[in-house]
């Protein structure tokens, strides 16, 4: 891999074979070609590397929810942080867990080395400079990291090249040498970085690392001895997880508002399903239905496998995790929608959640009245179960009749209105002519001049002018809500008044 850097094309990463041939990251491409004329060079793709690293970080959430990609800026030294505190026993111990990790990563095409220690710095050093055994893992037993780190080279302390050169020139060859030095002298020559890295590696100072996503408190995981291929088996496993999670939530008297189900597939892909509830719930039936709804419609994972059989194998699921990302204490207060005889408010919530899960929460709504006299602004969409706060809502029925259907944008009509301030006698709308036999009006509605134009620049004169509304009935009994824009006497013969249709009456 090569990348342009500081005027020269330099190697950013080399394969094991290239390393043996004497190449190393940081060499210019010209030098590399001189050493090994037949070297194969590819353009480095830092963005692609970052994306891949992120994917592996997601993949690693099967071991611990707390994962973070690290050290992308140092190119080939990139890696992943995993905080496995309290997780190893789930995998029969630390060694077995790291073994499992590197083996599975190898199976999906990544060669990995793992280091495990009390501190992040020591783990970093262990993974990169330790002498791995068969399983490519180095584990520092608890409390041993100071002794074990001593023979490691200075590079194990995550120091930049210029500092490493300086230390080398002073004859400080390993971490042990460095830790014996008086701090003041070290800081004077090299700044505070070496001492800080040393303290971090030895656990004398804390090293905060931001995880990729905050670790959820409510999280359960299940791994299968044999990967699951059939949908009903996956659903059954998800069901078990849901029940276990609900039991825990119930004991804590909490309910889930947001759930995340992760399917870790054999091919290394992780599918995530999110489900939301409108009210905290720990009802396994309900939550499972929400998840199943999306589980059923999960698209087949894209695959690079050559034949359908191996594609199916790659799509098999080996681990499932279920997390309640957002939980709330269960409240006794229930929905304010009507609770009739033998009706169960929770059943309505379940319906709303299922509809919202498939159609999107914005598409399941309730109307709320706004205190305005502009017809199109009177009604407002609110979440279907956003428990009305108890504030008295504006009355729905205005003194004048209103149509049950309103056009979102009033539509211009060709109208014949021979008498000023009278409703038209004839109008044409959507290709159909209506002869008006009866009419009522005008009802004058003034614009809300105090309101600034709506964002988006959709405001036209139409919204800023006085409207005179008429309720009209045509010869067949159809009723419409028409209005004339502007005051009649403002119009000249050149600019006749414009008529609009705004609603359909019953």
């Amino acid at each position, binding site marked *: 891999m090569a990348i342009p850097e500081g005027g020269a094309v330099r190697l950013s990463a080399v394969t094991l074979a290239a390393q043996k041939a004497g190449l190393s990251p940081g060499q210019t491409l010209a030098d590399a070609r001189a050493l090994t004329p037949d070297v194969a060079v590819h353009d480095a793709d830092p963005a692609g590397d970052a994306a891949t690293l992120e994917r592996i970080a997601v993949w690693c959430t099967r071991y611990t929810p707390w994962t973070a990609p690290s050290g992308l800026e140092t190119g080939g030294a990139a890696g992943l942080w995993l905080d496995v505190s309290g997780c190893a026993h789930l995998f029969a111990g630390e060694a077995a867990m790291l073994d499992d990790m590197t083996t599975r990563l190898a199976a999906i095409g990544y060669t990995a080395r793992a280091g495990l220690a009390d501190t992040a710095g020591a783990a970093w050093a262990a993974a990169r400079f330790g002498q791995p055994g068969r399983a490519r893992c180095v584990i520092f037993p608890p409390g041993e990291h100071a002794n074990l780190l001593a023979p490691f080279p200075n590079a194990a302390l995550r120091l930049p090249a210029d500092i490493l050169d300086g230390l080398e020139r002073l004859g400080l060859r390993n971490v042990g040498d460095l830790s014996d030095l008086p701090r003041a002298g070290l800081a004077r020559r090299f700044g505070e970085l070496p001492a800080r890295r040393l303290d971090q590696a030895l656990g004398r100072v804390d090293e905060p690392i931001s995880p990729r996503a905050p670790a959820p408190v409510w999280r359960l995981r299940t791994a299968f001895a044999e990967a699951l291929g059939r949908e009903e088996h996956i659903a059954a496993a998800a069901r078990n997880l849901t029940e276990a999670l609900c039991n825990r939530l119930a004991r804590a008297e909490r309910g889930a508002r947001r759930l995340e189900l992760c399917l870790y597939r054999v091919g290394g892909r992780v599918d995530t399903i999110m489900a939301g509830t409108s009210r905290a719930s720990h009802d396994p039936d309900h939550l499972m239905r929400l998840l199943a709804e999306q589980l059923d419609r999960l698209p087949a994972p894209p695959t690079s496998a050559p034949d359908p059989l191996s594609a199916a194998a790659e799509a098999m699921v080996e681990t499932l995790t279920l997390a309640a990302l957002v939980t709330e204490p269960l409240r006794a207060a229930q929905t304010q929608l009507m609770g009739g005889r033998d009706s169960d408010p929770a059943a309505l919530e379940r319906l709303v959640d299922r509809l919202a899960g*498939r159609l999107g929460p914005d*598409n399941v*709504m*309730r109307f709320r009245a706004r205190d305005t006299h502009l017809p199109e602004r009177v009604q407002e969409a609110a979440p279907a179960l956003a428990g009305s706060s108890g504030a008295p809502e504006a009355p729905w*029925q205005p003194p004048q009749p*209103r149509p*049950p259907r309103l056009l979102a944008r009033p539509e211009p009509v060709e109208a014949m209105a021979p008498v000023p301030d009278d409703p038209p006698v004839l109008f044409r709308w959507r290709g159909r002519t209506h002869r008006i036999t009866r009419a009522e009006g005008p009802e004058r509605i003034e614009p809300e001049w105090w309101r600034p134009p709506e964002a988006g620049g959709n405001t036209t004169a139409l919204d800023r002018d006085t409207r005179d509304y008429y309720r009209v009935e045509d010869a067949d009994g159809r009723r419409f809500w028409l209005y004339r824009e502007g005051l009649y006497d403002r119009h000249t013969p050149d600019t006749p008044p414009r008529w609009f249709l705004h609603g359909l009456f019953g």
Partner: protein
Amino acid sequence: MPADPQLLQRLRSRIAAIERGGSGTPLADDDGLPFAIPEIDEHLPWGGLAAGAVHELLDGDGPTSNSTTRIGGALNGAVTAFAAALAGKAQRARARPIVWIAPRITARESLYAPGLAGFGLDPADLIAVRVPLSSQGDGDFAATALWAMEEALRAPTVGLVCAEIEEMSLTASRRLQLAAETGGGMGLLLRRDTGALPPTASISRWRIAALPGGPPEYANLPGTTRWQAELLRARGGRPRSWQLEWRDDGQDNSQTPGGFALVPPLRDRSLPAESGTPDETAPPHSAKYRRTA
């Protein structure tokens, strides 16, 4: 001694439940939705609109409703108001919220809560469900809308489900009817009258059209809302047509919702010729409904 009409209704609903093969819960005696007009309720086999069933309301907006000049995307005010009035009755009678499913395209002609309230439907207990038109075309939309209606019909806490779905196969219609039977819900399908609708499993089909309004007749003001309600088909019943009007019992914004009433026999005001005679024994579109039924 004449039979007690209530007893007859109960027996009829039992028979209806048995006819459905006992697959569903038998209709509760009081779960139907009467019009509160004896003439209609006694004509219908279920003493009103049956619960645990789907009913279709066709938008009978005159002869052009199946031509290209039809009101694009919109169902007319008349059928909307009729459905809103029925939904409002169900809301009160069953004390449960209403679910109204509409395609997003009718965001152009959105439901308007103040107007619905005028027909006795309380918007505070109305859940509006918009089904987005997907990029995959209308077929996908119809499937999603049908799924939503099925879900709502199966939910025991919904008073009535109203859905604006145009395209529907007989199979889809059967699924809806089955969902209503098992869940005990009541469904209203609002559809355009294309003149050649496929057969349906819904247990009744109506065509609702606007009629020139009732009184007041002075000063040429639009009067009370009136409909021509044609019962085109009813399982176990005969087609018939009525002229109905909406009576706002409480004037001046009072809390009492209005109700349906039969249009009183013609007295002093002549109807426009094309609306036909108001005599309800001879419906004006009788030829049409025989063809469609």
